[in-house]
């Protein structure tokens, strides 16, 4: 598979030498990566290595200390998160990031750009996640953990994003739910969406990704495409 950086169209996401963190802590130390359209990049690494910080810095929740972020070829470094999201990016954060007190319907509706677009997008959502068709009025907080995560993915797909940023979605989920989400992500990828998948669950990540990278202490330690010896090579990074 060709390296995304040399693709004729600009990559969906390109991060060059990005450094940043919180207050005085430097968590990211010169991260460089790129994701092309229609591919899934899995960023792996243990906790505390900077994975969530990377996402939040790309999205503008945290100001970068150095380096730059390009989205579809245009500079997006440090722009406001809501503006970036409106330009075609969807973000599924790590914590239970749905509005517990709002209904399933309202949670989905918030992600849409207008009520009209909301109604248009619903059939597709029901196709991907049939369980929501009859649960629209249910309060989101009463869904099970797995259903809440599926809601997060459904919500992220409301606006047909060109780039999906997903932070540790598989955590705490049953294998059947993970399989369902994996199928959805694969079909999105096949339709041309780029996906940045942050994961600790190596098995899940390797099952759907095209390429992988390991983040260690704020920088990319190792990366490559999915092949036979990949699994054991990655496992070494996680051994004690």
């Amino acid at each position, binding site marked *: 598979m060709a390296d995304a950086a040399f693709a004729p169209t600009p990559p969906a996401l390109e991060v060059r030498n990005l450094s940043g963190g919180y207050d005085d802590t430097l968590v990211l130390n010169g991260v460089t990566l790129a994701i092309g359209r229609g591919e899934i990049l899995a960023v792996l690494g243990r906790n505390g290595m900077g994975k969530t910080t990377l996402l939040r810095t790309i999205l503008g929740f945290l100001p970068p200390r150095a380096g730059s972020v390009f989205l579809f070829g245009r500079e997006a470094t440090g722009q406001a998160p*809501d503006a970036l*999201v409106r330009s075609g990016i969807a973000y599924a*954060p790590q914590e239970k990031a749905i*509005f517990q*007190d709002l209904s399933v319907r309202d949670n989905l509706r*918030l992600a849409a750009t207008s009520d009209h677009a909301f109604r248009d997008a619903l059939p597709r959502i029901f196709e991907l996640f049939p369980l929501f068709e009859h649960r629209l009025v249910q309060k989101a907080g009463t869904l099970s953990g797995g259903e809440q995560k599926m809601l997060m993915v459904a*919500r992220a797909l409301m606006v047909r994003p060109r780039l999906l940023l997903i932070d540790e979605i598989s955590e705490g989920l049953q294998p059947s739910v993970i399989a369902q989400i994996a199928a959805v992500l694969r079909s999105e990828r096949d339709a041309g969406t780029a996906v940045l998948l942050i994961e600790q669950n190596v098995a899940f990540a390797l099952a759907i990704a095209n390429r992988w990278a390991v983040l260690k202490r704020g920088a990319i330690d190792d990366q490559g495409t999915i092949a036979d010896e990949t699994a054991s090579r990655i496992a070494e990074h996680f051994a004690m």
Partner: protein
Amino acid sequence: MSLLLDVVTTAGVLFAVAMGLLVVFGVLKIINFAHGALLTLGAYAALVTTKLGISAWLAWPLAFVSGGALGLVVERLIVRPLYARPLDAILATWGLGIVISQVITLCFGREVQFARSPLSGTIAILGDTYSVYRLALLGVSMALGLLFAALIEGTRLGLSARAVIMNEDLARGLGIDTRRVRLLTFMIGCGLAALAGALITPLSSVDPNMGVPWLINAFMLVMVAGASFLSLALASLILGGAQVIVSTFVSPILGGMTIVLLAAVVLRLRPAGFGRD
């Protein structure tokens, strides 16, 4: 029987006055201490309609619009820079309140004046005669409450506002322009404050410092109510009712501090107030 009517109409008035403050506190998480001065602004808008000889009903939209316009300016210049400093936001809006009061004094003078009421007279109800306007005011408050409840549940702006109230960071991550939501909410809150001022002028009179006692009571009600209109209505009824009862049976002066005292005690015992945890 007139006691019961006093209780519910007072609750209605308190609710109308506190609505604007609640809206701002819920979404922006700050207390707009200029609320009392905005109330006064709206009251003087009503006075203006009286002086110009136009219909007193026009006072209401006039007040709402002036409040909203002022809110636009205030949010950009004063509230937005103090987003991360809520205690300083209280102080800055208090300073704004002083400025507004002094401008009003310079324009209109210090004396007490009277604005014409759109409705006058009394009506026989439940065996007593009671002020028509007070009853109408109760109806208006309930209508306003229902209108805003519908807005918040039904419209996209309302939904966005609820999202911002619950978790602003998450709302931004969904692409909601939270700055715009905060601006619009503040404008509406100021408009409501001014409208309430126009609504209450026929009950007594108009003077540049009339807003202060209302501010304090509204403030305590909002602290106790949390972020929902329903709990505000409940708080208005219970605390307002207590005020009426104490004023009638003990002394009007002690009645004046009933709301403040009860609210402080409620908050100490149950920091969430009447709202849900």
